[in-house]
């Protein structure tokens, strides 16, 4: 019995390789799905009032975060001697998350969204890399400073995105 098993597996391998990973449904299922989405789903950014509210909220949020970041970035730059401020890092990360959530519900052109996403990947990778290094060397003020700077760059980049002309 076990002698036969590899044969079946090998036999099927070429068939599996040819198997389409994707099969289009015979009809568009989206209208039916959309009709079943919970009320949260009805938040459509095409509604002008929603857009206006989102824009106002984003500007307000951006201003609040600007104050926060400006307050922090005016500090002396001698990061090599700065203590590791984990709570401050967490606050900065949270501010970025809130900005990103706010931006997600705003109405930007697809091409702009793609540029945003591409650059967020660059920043997020830098944050992850600094975080890993800091995890390995938790007392390093240099790494903490670099991580903090990466978080601040994320917030400032999202602020820039919030100021962009809407589509």
């Amino acid at each position, binding site marked *: 019995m076990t002698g036969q098993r590899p044969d079946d597996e090998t036999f099927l391998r070429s068939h599996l390789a040819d198997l389409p990973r994707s099969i289009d449904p015979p009809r568009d299922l989206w209208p039916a799905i959309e009709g079943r989405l919970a009320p949260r789903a009805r938040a459509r950014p095409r509604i002008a009032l929603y857009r206006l509210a989102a824009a106002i909220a984003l500007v307000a949020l951006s201003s609040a975060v600007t104050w926060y970041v400006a307050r922090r970035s005016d500090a002396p730059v001698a990061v090599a001697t700065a203590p590791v401020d984990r709570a401050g890092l967490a606050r900065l990360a949270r501010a970025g998350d809130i900005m990103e959530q706010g931006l997600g519900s705003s109405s930007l052109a697809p091409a702009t969204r793609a*540029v945003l996403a*591409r*650059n967020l990947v*660059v*920043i997020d990778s830098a944050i992850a890399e600094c975080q890993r290094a800091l995890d390995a060397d938790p007392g390093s003020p*240099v790494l903490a400073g670099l991580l903090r700077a990466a978080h601040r*760059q994320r917030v400032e980049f999202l602020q820039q*995105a919030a100021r962009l002309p809407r589509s």
Partner: protein
Amino acid sequence: MRPAVLLLALILPVPLMAQQRIDRRMAVSSTASIRINDLVGMVRLVGWDRDSLVVVGELPARAGQLYFGGSTDAAKVGLEGTDTGSVVTSATLEVRVPKHARVSVRGAVVSLDAGGLEGDLDFITTAGRLHVEGAPRTVTAETLDGNVEVAGPVASLRVRTAGGTVVLRGVRGDLTVTTVSGAILIGGARISRARLETVSGEIAWKGAIERGGTLDAQTHSGNIELRLPPTLGADLELSAPSGAITSEFTLKGKPSASGTLRTSIGDGGAAITARTFRGRISLLKQPEVDANPAAPGGISGTSR
């Protein structure tokens, strides 16, 4: 439509038919606020000695309609009804403004060449390119994906781009440049304060720092190259946890275990901080006689 007109319409080439000739003029004050919205294609912005606002040029039909108006203290120029489904590159406009005017440019895609301005220039676009020559009092430029090039003794300059390259020549005073992946290339600078930050781009600096001034350069994964006057006095804090620190200046001391070197060159005075997580830091001496002092420092492999 009369037959002759119809015939003319049929035989005229489409682009010619579709092109609008623009020539609009109005009087404004010498320090007026001029707002330029949603222009497309190539735009030349010229500061001149007259107290008037002029827009001349040609627009394809799909660029939409030009609006133009306002008061002597605040005027507005822009396009409405632009075909957003296509990229309009054939528009060519020249906007002349009083040289001390405050000019604000907003839009999605515009390539702006500015010259002769001595007031404030504010430029916020998604994919716009900006080239400024001259000495505006301040330049604030934000573009998501466009390059920014400024040549001239701008006293205060703030540039932010995500993927674009920033090239600055001969800038003065106060400088803040931030990119995500774009390179920051600066030549012939003399600043009192500069903050240069990028995430994955390179930083190349060639210029002087005033006594008591600060230069803060930071990149996560790029290299930092600083070409400094041989006689410069500065206190240095250089951090490169994963890369090397090399110098043509004699540096006393050694990097700490965390990769930070704190030292001085000359008699100190200016403060220079350079940090890169993954790249290297190079300190180079600027030639005593620099054939082209305003040429930005370069890093091999950096695209311009």
